[in-house]
């Protein structure tokens, strides 16, 4: 039986990009695996970094900010509070980091064979989920420990917990939306990657991960709410533990902003990807 191959130009546009990503979805795991291999090749510790990376910082920060500096935690054990905040923050930050590097890391692949480039951005984020899974595991352990020690369940255990899930999805979608822009820029400019690291470390400080929003002086609190991550993180903690405040309006605004940005990102990506690939 002969196979007929038809070589035609790709239908441009954001919608077509999405359809194509779905058609090629089985490549996702392959791209994620590749990303991990590339990241840890020629390293001494290799795969151990996967574990050191998320876990070591949480432990040290808990000691300094919780035990030494006595930062508030809305009445929760500080470690648990920090862990929850870190889980949601890292969903955003790690996926953004991986997503931004997608086109640049897979240059050799892109120049050899056609595949939807938007898939690279999404597929390159899969290591972030490995990271998330690890942290959720630690979170479950810590939760069990503190629940047994203090004899009370810290989770609220009702339908409001779905808000935490919504916050998680929102954090991921926001980083996906940003990656649609940053992966293109990162392909053209090398310093985007370094700049991103620095931007994220400042952003991290301005997001209530290490401290609760209630500890921010009231005159600055409204400004903090302009940060979409602040709302996402607060909603996550409110949904999990019922501590802090729920900001329905701000959350709605954030969700709308994320949808807009994601649409804009897809359009931008679809329009520029070909040029970016051709120009290098």
């Amino acid at each position: 039986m002969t196979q007929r191959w038809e070589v035609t130009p790709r239908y441009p546009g954001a919608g077509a990009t999405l359809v194509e990503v779905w058609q090629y979805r089985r490549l996702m795991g392959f791209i994620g695996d590749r990303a991990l291999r590339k990241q840890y090749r020629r390293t001494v510790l290799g795969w151990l970094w996967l574990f050191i990376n998320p876990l070591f910082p949480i432990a040290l920060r808990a000691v300094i900010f919780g035990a030494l500096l006595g930062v508030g935690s809305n009445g929760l054990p500080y470690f648990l509070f920090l862990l929850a905040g870190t889980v949601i923050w890292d969903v955003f930050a790690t996926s953004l980091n991986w997503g931004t590097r997608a086109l640049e890391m897979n240059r050799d692949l892109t120049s050899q064979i056609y595949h939807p480039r938007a898939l690279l951005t999404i597929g390159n984020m899969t290591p972030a989920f490995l990271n998330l899974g690890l942290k959720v595991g630690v979170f479950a352990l810590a939760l069990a420990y503190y629940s047994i020690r203090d004899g009370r369940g810290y989770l609220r255990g009702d339908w409001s917990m779905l808000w935490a899930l919504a916050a998680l999805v929102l954090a991921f979608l926001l980083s996906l939306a940003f990656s649609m822009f940053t992966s293109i820029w990162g392909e053209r400019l090398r310093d985007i990657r370094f700049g991103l690291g620095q931007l994220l470390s400042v952003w991290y400080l301005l997001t209530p991960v290490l401290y609760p929003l209630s500890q921010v002086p009231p005159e600055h609190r409204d400004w903090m709410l302009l940060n979409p991550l602040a709302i996402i993180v607060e909603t996550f903690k409110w949904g999990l533990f019922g501590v802090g405040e729920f900001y329905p309006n701000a959350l709605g605004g954030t969700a709308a902003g994320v949808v807009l940005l994601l649409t804009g990102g897809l359009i931008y990506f679809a329009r520029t990807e070909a040029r970016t690939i051709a120009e290098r």
Partner: protein
Amino acid sequence: MLGKNASLSPERQTWVIDALEDQGLGARVREVWQYRRILRFFSAKSVQALYRKTYLGPWWILIRTLVPLGVGSFVFGSVMNVPSAGVPYFLFFLIGQVPWNCFDGPLIRGSRGIEVNRDLLTKLYVPRIILPMGQMSAGLVEPVIIVLVMIASLVYYRVYDNVWYVPLRVELLACVASVLLVMVFAFSLSLWTSVWQARARDVRFAVRYVLAFWMMFTPVIYPLSTVPANLRWLMNLNPMTAPIETFRWGMLPGLEHSWGWFGYAVGVTLVTLAAGVWHFARTEAITMDKM
């Protein structure tokens, strides 16, 4: 290697290529001195690399230094209410950042010394110890900016709050000593890390990692007095604690510090330096071959 009997007469140049006759420490130091002009080249190169190929150019360095200063002092001072030894937290924060950045920046840059000059090294000879040294210069740009911001904020507090926080006195010399000490310490450590980094990629992540957490266990954003008294000796075992506390003691009157622990830090630095030079000299040839 340009040997001792090389003569550079205008008519005829004779190049004698021989192996190093003397591998000892004295020979190393003399060699660095002979090549001192190339140090300037490497320094300039490393500073330019900070902003080369960026849209904002040198402004990029300024933004990168100033924004974290503002955000850090807001979060740690206003939100977390970290104690600040009786001065505005912003000033306290700046004072801690100066000696820390004199350590952090040079160490991060110095660690890349061999790695970034890889293509050059495979083509010609330079005393390799110059590489981490030259690369370190890039790390000194940030502390200089922070010192300028600190002076500006001192003037601000003088004009608006009518207080001058840093009196001119002999103790300021201790600040100079602390800064020099941490820079030498950074250099000694980069003698180890630059060799490792030329071999394994993850050393680079590891250096940044370790430094980010080292800072938390050093009284930079908080004073040592926050730490419970029975644990302070543990903090002081960290050789960065004493220089930073001494720097602060020299700047602000009415603080406490211990010369004993400062002496300990000097001791640790000297041992690290000696061991670093030995390690560097022993491994550089092997490292170059493997590149």
